[in-house]
């Protein structure tokens, strides 16, 4: 146990800001996962690998002298088509089956992607430098890398645009209708096959954006996908499906929680404490749910 947070009050501010900036980025990935989980009832284990692939797109742009920030525009476009391709090849065959089969299928895709990326790009850890500099606050006691601020800003921008798109556009309405009741939507003339493909594409595109941002703020290599899958899975579990503001809040909450766990319990318990939190929340939810059921009885 460490009590640095109390000895150095500025750490509290730093931890909150770091956590929020990090959480927003995670929330973006979780948002994509929640979307396709809600619409297609598929838990995508390959989520993190799509993120890393998006990161490589930004990295290669950086290698060829283009500023990696442009990756947040290029990566989603490419990833959208990658998503559609994955849907057409694999996902459309498992979309109506039970959850276990889709988990197995996406797990397979995840392994395939890892190995292909390793084969194509090599096992080296890489990153793209944005050269954005640093923002200093409170007499330079709190430091925020501008790349983190940039990525949080872009994440929010994409999330907001997507929410508006879902509300206003025809496809967005079709997606929401399919999520509510696929059969009814089909009867009313929604081409659900198209909706599924588009949903998976949009999810992959969001992963592409997040990946580009991660290559600017952190590092990427072919085997780093799984932690992102797990985090977004947790955020969705905590927030519940179809609860978009909830996803944003639980993303940021988890980010802050992680940072504090790091300072108070120690870095080695950072990930562990997040898992503990997940277990607690699931137990709590079950408890609440069972009381509700009794009430209904």
């Amino acid at each position, binding site marked *: 146990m460490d009590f640095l947070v109390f000895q150095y009050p500025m750490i509290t501010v730093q931890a909150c800001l770091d956590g929020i900036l990090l959480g927003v980025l995670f929330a973006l990935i979780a948002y994509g996962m929640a979307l396709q989980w809600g619409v297609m009832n598929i838990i995508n284990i390959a989520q993190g690998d799509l993120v890393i692939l998006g990161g490589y797109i930004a990295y290669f742009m950086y290698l060829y002298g283009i500023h990696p920030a442009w990756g947040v525009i290029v990566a989603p476009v490419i990833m959208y088509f990658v998503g559609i391709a994955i849907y057409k090849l694999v996902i459309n065959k498992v979309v109506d089956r039970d959850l276990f089969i889709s988990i197995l299928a996406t797990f397979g895709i995840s392994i395939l992607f890892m190995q292909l990326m390793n084969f194509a790009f090599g096992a080296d850890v890489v990153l793209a430098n944005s050269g954005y500099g640093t923002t200093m606050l409170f007499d330079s006691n709190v430091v925020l890398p501008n790349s983190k601020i940039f990525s949080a800003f872009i994440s929010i921008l994409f999330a907001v645009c997507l929410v508006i798109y879902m509300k206003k556009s025809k496809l967005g309405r079709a997606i929401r209708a399919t999520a509510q009741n696929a059969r009814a939507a089909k009867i009313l003339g929604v081409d659900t096959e198209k909706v599924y493909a588009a949903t998976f594409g949009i999810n992959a595109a969001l992963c592409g954006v997040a990946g580009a941002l991660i290559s600017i703020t952190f*590092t990427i290599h072919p085997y780093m996908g799984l932690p992102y899958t797990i985090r977004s899975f947790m955020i969705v579990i905590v927030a519940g499906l179809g609860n978009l503001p909830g996803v944003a809040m639980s993303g940021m909450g988890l980010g802050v929680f992680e940072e504090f766990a790091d300072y108070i319990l120690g*870095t080695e318990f950072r990930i562990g404490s997040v898992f503990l939190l997940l277990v607690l929340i699931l137990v709590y939810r079950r408890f609440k749910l069972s009381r509700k059921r009794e009430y209904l009885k």
Partner: protein
Amino acid sequence: MRLNKIILSFVSALVILFSTSVASFAKVVGDKIILGAAISLTGKYSSNGVHTQNGYNMAVDRINSMGGVKVGGKTYKFDIIYYDDESNPKRAAQLAERLISQDGVEFMLGPYSSGLTKAIAPVTEKYGVPMVEANGASRSLFTKGYKYLFAVLAPANLYLDVAIETAVELNGGKPVKIAQAFEQDAFSQDVRLGILDAAERTGSKIIIDDKLPKELNDMAATLVKVKQMKPDVLVVSGHTKGALTAIRQIAEMKVDVPMLAMTHCDAAKLSKQHGKNSQYALCASQWHKSLTYKDDFFKDGMTYAADFEKEFGYDPPYQSAESSAALLVFKDAFERANSFDQKKVRDALAATNMQTFYGNIKFAPGGQNVDKPMVLFQVMCDASGSCENKVVAPLKWASAKLIHPIPKWSDR
């Protein structure tokens, strides 16, 4: 028709017989000494696996073209059977079994990384197959009482204690405050043990002791602590991702610390990926091309580096150099044993005392090389932004003077 079948089965039986009989003679066939190696050609260690393989191949070609190995008045040439262990310890152990019991290999070269060497060592030990390894530095390899394991490199706990000693020396012999962050894997934790020893020896205090997760790509929390608690030395070890993450975030967060010591800088291509931000970082290395060790085959480090670059198109990292050295050790041992008897070769290996371009080699009873100190280099950049690694410690090999303390970010 029936005759055809009979002929076919006869021929295939012959083929099977022939192939197995070749395999059982595989240790020394004709004028060839066949060594076995499981190497990570795919999977997460594949880049370093390839460096290792290139190092082995370079030495095999060189030794063969310069007269080979002379045993019992006859000249032999080296040959290596490689298998891809997919960076997976279980697979590596299986492949070691296969090399020994199916392919009949009687002498082994090591794989890449401490973890895989740990997986293979029990197998080679069980069969009494001498193994010279060049890429497993974990201390636990040398405390298990293995008799057939020999490592040409210095053990992991010696990687960075030079840095602590240097820091204490520069502090006028007074103890220093140390902040450390290590990944939770066998190698990095061994480096950590070395630092703990050095701290105790010098009376220094460890004020931050973070353990980083395996999928580390964010150490902002550690760096915030460093910023607030102002240690004299920051030590980071977490393979290439640790080195890259540390430099990126130290620069972004403008963390001022008088001394920054790390591992895996050249594998991470720090100065290429981070340019001037990596300046002043101190890096532990098994080898550097500017060291002045010499041998008959590669002459010295500079010549080795030039030849390697000509053949493979890149500057050799120390992983390649130490792998080449493993072959030189084997050649020397075969010639001194003057036999292919595994026991005699093992004893000859244990008695090794030689100099190679990579460094002096002399094995302790545990199998680690005790005659080659680690070197520390510092990343130094000129005004145009091109950076170079210069050896700064130990003083005997230093080609530049250590810049200490690291200038503050506000003055850079």
